[in-house]
């Protein structure tokens, strides 16, 4: 199997795990781990705090104009949305480019960062 297929399969598996986590029934911890970890290693929120600076060039809390807010976004929803941009299910060219520039480690780091923000809100 080619590298691309492996990557696609991995993404699909991740998507499935995440949609299960999103569905909320059970809310298994293993599902949330798929969101916040990569290869079992937890995402690094400090890295996420740096990465999110790229997002805040366009995203703002009150979601001005044509850019929706992502403050306080649920980590699972976030990971799924990014997978959908990367695979073209969601088509906005700007976000497709953003999503495709982020690897699993970056997505886990961002998810971990969003999780810390959620903790603060709760």
């Amino acid at each position, binding site marked *: 199997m080619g590298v691309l297929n492996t990557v696609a399969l991995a993404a699909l598996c991740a998507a499935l795990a995440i949609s299960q986590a999103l569905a909320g029934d059970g*809310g*298994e*911890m293993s599902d*949330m781990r798929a969101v916040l970890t990569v290869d079992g290693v*937890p995402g*690094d*929120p*400090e*890295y996420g*705090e*740096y*990465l999110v*600076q*790229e997002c*805040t*060039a*366009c*995203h*703002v809390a009150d*979601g*001005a*104009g*044509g*850019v929706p807010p992502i403050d306080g976004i*649920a980590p699972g929803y976030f990971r799924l949305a990014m997978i959908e941009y990367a695979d073209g299910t969601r088509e906005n*060219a*700007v976000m*497709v*480019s*953003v999503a*495709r*520039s982020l690897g699993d480690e970056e997505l886990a780091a961002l998810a*971990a960062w969003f*999780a*810390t923000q*959620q*903790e*603060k809100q709760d």
Partner: protein
Amino acid sequence: MDLSRRDTMTLAAAAGAATLFAPNVARAALPKLVVVGGGTGGATVARTVAAAGGVDVTLVERNPVYMTCYFSNLYLGDHWDYDRLAHNYETMKARDGVKMAMGNAASVGDGRVVMSDGTEIAYDRAVVAPGIDFKYDMYEGFDEHVAETMVPHAYKSGNQLLMLKQQLMAMREGGTVVIAAPPNPYRCPPGPYERASMMANWLSRNNPTAKVLILDPKTKHSKQGLFVEGWNRLYPGMVEWVGGEFTGGDFLAVDAQARSVTTADEEVFEADVLNFIPAQTAGRIAIDSGLTGDGDWASVDPATLESTLVPGVHVLGDACANGDMPKSGFSANSQAKACAQAVLAAMTDRRAFPPRFRNTCWSLVGDDYGIKVGASYKAGDGKIEKTEGFISQVGEDDATHAQTAAEGIGWYEAMTGEIFG
């Protein structure tokens, strides 16, 4: 969410770790960063480093108010008020603890910034982000005085932008605006063509028999097919572009009284309103401080934006030789964030992360009619390299154009809010 209590604690601890690096009162003196130029790039670096803490940040800026060039064309088209382009440094001072040093800097180097009045500001590390200056001496009859009084370039916001708008509004019925576009590389590749669009937009409502003629030293330009599609649809017969094949690829002279411009082919074009945008260089202070070497732009390490000629001084935004990135506000903001984390890693015990670069340029062609181009970049071998890009497609529907226009406005509000509060 069903995080176990233990996981919650780990996450909270990790989040707390980031604030461990906040200013330490016990430490005698914090390392000093001095940033010259409080535009998009410089202000981003200053506030990002100051907000992270652990560094004493001074921002040197000669103007109390920063007028963005981006979206200045919307002012020309009557879509935005002039005041909407204005930003100040109050939030940066209050929220992020950036110290402001108002005044003109003359040079940077050897651990100090020398101001034009002779005072000096010491630094451990410096960032220079002065934007652009112009190569006036390439053209007969055109200099800063002419630009300030009769033939605006309006390629820095401020009085010249106001003058250009007044000239547009006062133009005789059926008159011709000539925009002389600059040669590469220059600030905002789609800028002159968005300007033509927004002038045509205003004229189509107020002076519908007028014309907009773009004279270009270049044989092609940014988002060309998309602009032409928009002009044909929205302003049929009003906007004409004359490329480098017909201008000889350069301009020789400007006659301010006659409002005419002479091309390299020695053809003279007369205008009712002349917007002459000259060839560009890095802002003067970068040249005077030896940061540009023999060239027009400061060469930098693509990962840290540190000068390859003057150690300890970083150059970013329009003034640096930015590899594959266009000179844009978005790029300046992106480079500033990469630079901020490199500076923090060098000056504090913060970790360094891999630099990330991105650009998107939205242009407004008409009411609710936007187009965009953008890309991701990485620190490559000796320059910032493009990794993947996208561009609006010819033939997009109205809803897509409207969404793109709205996105651009969303970006403006988000980025200026992030920087200036």
